[in-house]
């Protein structure tokens, strides 16, 4: 479970959001919607430790997670808007690199899990390809597999439908639902109301429900 309490982020005098409260229950899919430039991505970056906040608290499964500098967090996996796959590694190595080097999993076990993940995501036999050989939708699924391989408590997506055609959008909706049915807690940042309604249990409207 993710709990955000009284989170405030400012850039100088410019208040991005203040006293933000948000709860995400286990197994739930929550969409955070709102127009671009409103601070949704900033929120996800604070949750994953890529940015700092000015005040507030973030709890993951009851455990407080700092909002200051220099913390590492593999508890929230993130699917970046442009995926940020490592171009110098194959699909398989993109997925196994962190389990092997960070979690010290054996190469064999990591590989087996990666193959299974790719299988469930409909990416069978793609493990030997390099990122540049994949379509946008395929890159996204590799990014999802890469995040899942670290067994995060929550998976967060930053604008998962941007840059995808209708077909790939339907596919990512299917993947989110599939992961939900296997109990993965998911947070989706999107500007696409229709997509949000399609996939989520709950929608948090960043434009209406946030103070500035």
């Amino acid at each position, binding site marked *: 479970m993710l709990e955000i309490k009284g989170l405030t982020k400012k850039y100088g005098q410019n208040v991005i959001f203040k006293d933000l409260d948000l709860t995400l229950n286990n197994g739930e899919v929550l969409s955070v919607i709102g127009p671009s430039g409103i601070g949704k991505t900033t929120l996800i970056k604070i949750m994953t430790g*890529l940015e700092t906040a000015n005040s507030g608290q973030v709890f993951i499964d009851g455990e407080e997670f700092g909002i200051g500098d220099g913390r*590492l967090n593999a508890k929230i996996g993130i699917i*970046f808007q442009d995926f940020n796959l*490592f*171009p*110098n590694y194959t699909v398989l190595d993109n997925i196994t690199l962190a389990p092997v080097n960070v979690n010290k999993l054996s190469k064999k076990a990591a590989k087996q899990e990666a193959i299974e993940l790719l299988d469930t995501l409909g990416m069978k036999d793609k493990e030997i390809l390099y*990122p540049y050989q994949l379509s946008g939708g395929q890159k996204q699924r590799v990014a999802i597999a890469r995040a899942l391989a670290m067994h995060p408590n929550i998976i967060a997506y930053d604008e998962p439908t941007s840059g995808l055609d209708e077909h790939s959008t339907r596919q990512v909706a299917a993947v989110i639902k599939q992961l939900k049915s296997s109990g993965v807690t998911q947070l989706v940042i999107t500007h696409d109301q229709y997509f949000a309604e399609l996939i989520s249990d709950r929608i948090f409207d960043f434009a209406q429900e946030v103070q500035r």
Partner: protein
Amino acid sequence: MKYLMEILPGILTGLQSTLGVFFITLLGSIPLGILVSVGMKSPYFTIRWLINGYIWIMRGTPLLLQLIFIYYGLSMIGINFPRFEAAVLAFVVNYAAYLAEIFRGGLQSIPKGQYDAAKVLGFSRSQTFFKIVLPQVIKIIMPSFGNEVINLVKDTSLVYVIGLGDILRAGSIAASRDVTLIPYLVVGILYLIMTAAVTVSLRRSEKRLSIWR
């Protein structure tokens, strides 16, 4: 032909120094250059200031002059290096400065998203650098790095100024003794062979790196 056989042993002895300076410089200047390029992004002003000063001096003065200062200059204040060591030291610090600038360019072209992805996955800073950033930097800088290596082959001839017997010195001794240009011709051909070997191996590594984009 007979004359060639006469001058070859001398020139080949010179080749040992040339190749020695070449390989040791490569081995030394690459890690030093990486270190310097990372240091340029240091949060400490003093470190950045020192590194910029070092690069300014190394790129702003002729390598010939640096050789003279390291060999003759340092011996005046009591630091004595044998010729070969002095040559290698001058070349390593000089080439590291140039390579550092090349690495810096490569480092700058790695998107921030790569660091973000690595951080979220839990990689340490050194894992991020060595496993994710450095391989991408190497690919980016390969062509300009190759240029420097070719330059290095020819720059080794500058060691004559401190009396180290490289192939050019061996050639010019034979040329002035026998009043002929043939030794220079032989030396020129040897340089061409060396740069050809460098070119081929660089092309090979570029090809190996082209499996990903």
